[in-house]
């Protein structure tokens, strides 16, 4: 069964309609039939997908995600959708963008999409990052594709007049994601890599402590690295700083129905399981646990 051929959008054959299912206009989440504008590799590991969309999809905020109906290929028939956090949403241009790493059947299918192809995207889903207007400066630290999730947050912070310091971590300099987006908003940037040995724990900790001691860390944000999360959680507790982390988990429905995507959290009332799709994917850093 091809997911794309069974989309619920009622259109004439051959018509390239973009948009939410017409009868669903009043609803906050839509299964939107988007059209591929750009889908290209930006380095050895990552691809950039730009979609034209309409309706609720364009109201997605940083940290929220969509459940993508990845196409079948000759080799793969991904059955479930794949959750992916938004990289950029531009309501005026009617665009939703994603950054992904080709890692399995779903993303191999995504990589075959050509401009003009359609892709069903269910969303926006989950709770995005929140910014406290009292904050003056935040620190975001991410690794790999996790930086794609943090880039729109940094832009939202800049728009709200909050200064951003970004630690961009990657295996190699050539794989650092989205540096230009952090640069464009005037973020102070520290690039750390495995290649030159600067991404090690102690060095990143030194960076973070420096920012805290300079009074430039009202909150920590992280995504994409278990070790970075644990480090920031420890320092956030030590310096009494707020923190948020965007987490992943294998997922099916994305709407809170199936209870597949639970993770464990520590709360004042003891351990608790929460669904990444509806209780997250952004969680309080203090309650997040290692994976």
């Amino acid at each position, binding site marked *: 069964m091809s997911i794309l051929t*069974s989309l619920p959008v009622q259109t004439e054959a051959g018509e390239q309609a973009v948009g939410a299912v017409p009868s669903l206009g009043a609803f*906050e989440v839509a299964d939107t039939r988007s059209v591929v504008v750009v889908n290209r590799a930006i380095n050895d590991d990552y691809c950039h997908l730009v979609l034209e969309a309409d309706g609720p999809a364009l109201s997605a905020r940083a940290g929220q995600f969509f459940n993508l109906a990845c196409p079948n290929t000759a080799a793969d*028939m991904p*059955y479930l959708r794949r959750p992916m956090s938004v990289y950029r949403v531009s309501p005026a241009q009617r665009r939703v963008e994603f950054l992904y790493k080709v890692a399995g059947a779903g993303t191999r299918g995504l990589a075959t999409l050509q401009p003009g192809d359609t892709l069903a995207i*269910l969303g926006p889903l989950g709770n995005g990052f929140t910014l406290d207007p009292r904050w003056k400066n935040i620190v975001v630290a991410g690794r790999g594709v996790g930086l794609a999730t943090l880039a729109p947050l940094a832009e939202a912070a800049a728009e709200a007049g909050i200064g951003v310091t970004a630690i961009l971590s990657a295996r190699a300099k050539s794989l650092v994601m989205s540096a230009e987006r952090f640069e464009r908003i005037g973020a102070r940037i520290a690039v750390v890599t495995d290649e030159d040995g600067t991404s090690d724990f102690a060095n990143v900790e030194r960076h973070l402590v420096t920012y805290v001691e300079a009074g430039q860390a009202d909150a920590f944000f992280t995504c994409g690295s278990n070790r970075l999360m644990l480090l920031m959680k420890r320092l956030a507790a030590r310096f009494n700083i707020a923190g948020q982390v965007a987490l992943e988990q294998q997922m099916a*429905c994305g*709407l809170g*129905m*199936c209870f*597949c995507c639970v993770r464990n959290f520590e709360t004042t009332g003891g351990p608790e399981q929460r669904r990444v799709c509806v209780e997250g994917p952004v969680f309080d850093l203090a309650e997040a646990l290692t994976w």
Partner: protein
Amino acid sequence: MVDLQVRIGSLTLKNPVMPASGTFSEGLARVFSFDDLGALVTKTLTAELRGGNPTPRVAESGQGLLNSIGIPSKGIPYFIEHTLPEYRKSSTPLVVSVSAPTAELFAGAVRQLDVPDIAAIEANISCPNIEEDGKAFAMRASSTAAVVAELRRATALPLWVKLTPNTGDIGAVARAAEDRGADAIVVANTILAMAIDAETFKPRLGGIMGGFSGPAIKPIALRLVYQCAKVVGIPVIGCGGIATAEDAVEFMLAGATAVQVGTATFVRPTAMLDVVGDLAAFCDRKGIAKVSALTGALEDRGMQVDALEALP
């Protein structure tokens, strides 16, 4: 206009399409209105609080989904106080799925659900019965009879009994449910299965084994419906891999009065609405005035079941 109404015992549904338990929640109301569905079916409730299984809880395998969720449940009082009001926003009949590890606890759970606006009980007897040997109630006719008899005494609500495909004698189990007072049977549930990651040598589910669902199991569920409909007089509700109106038609031809759409909703959240709409279009195209005429209309007269392949 095609008449889509079907009757399940005393209950009349405006169409034969409803969600399968566990693949639906009030959260789907963020995507579409429930008023267009034939019935609503809750995730299985248990009397006790349950946390559920370790992750990974989900793995895909072919055109199907393996799950090992473990029925996390906040209990029945929580459901009545917090979840039921959400469902009351829709006029569509609400069916509450219930499970318990013993017949007595099962009956106790069902008694707690004697509250307004619950249209029927779906007893999920595919769960382990700890009084016997941990095997699901619905694996045997005897344990099915015992639990359904208890449940029948415990509630005046329409009682639907959801059977498991993991039995060697589905007909005997179905008859046992009917004999002890079930108003309908739901056929079937997920199929016990597993998947292994050949790279890591590890099971792909945290619970090692899990339930398999989705298009991959449709032919098996269809066969089970056919076998059950042959031996019971109560309505059979088909469930297993139904994703399109054509699938629904097949199940109705095999003897189902109504159908449940489950895993398809995870892949395409509006799948149920499509099944309703396309079912009407199908009947229209075929000149069928009432969708209920499809039930059991399979043209198998004069044909024989392959005796070498057939299970009991």
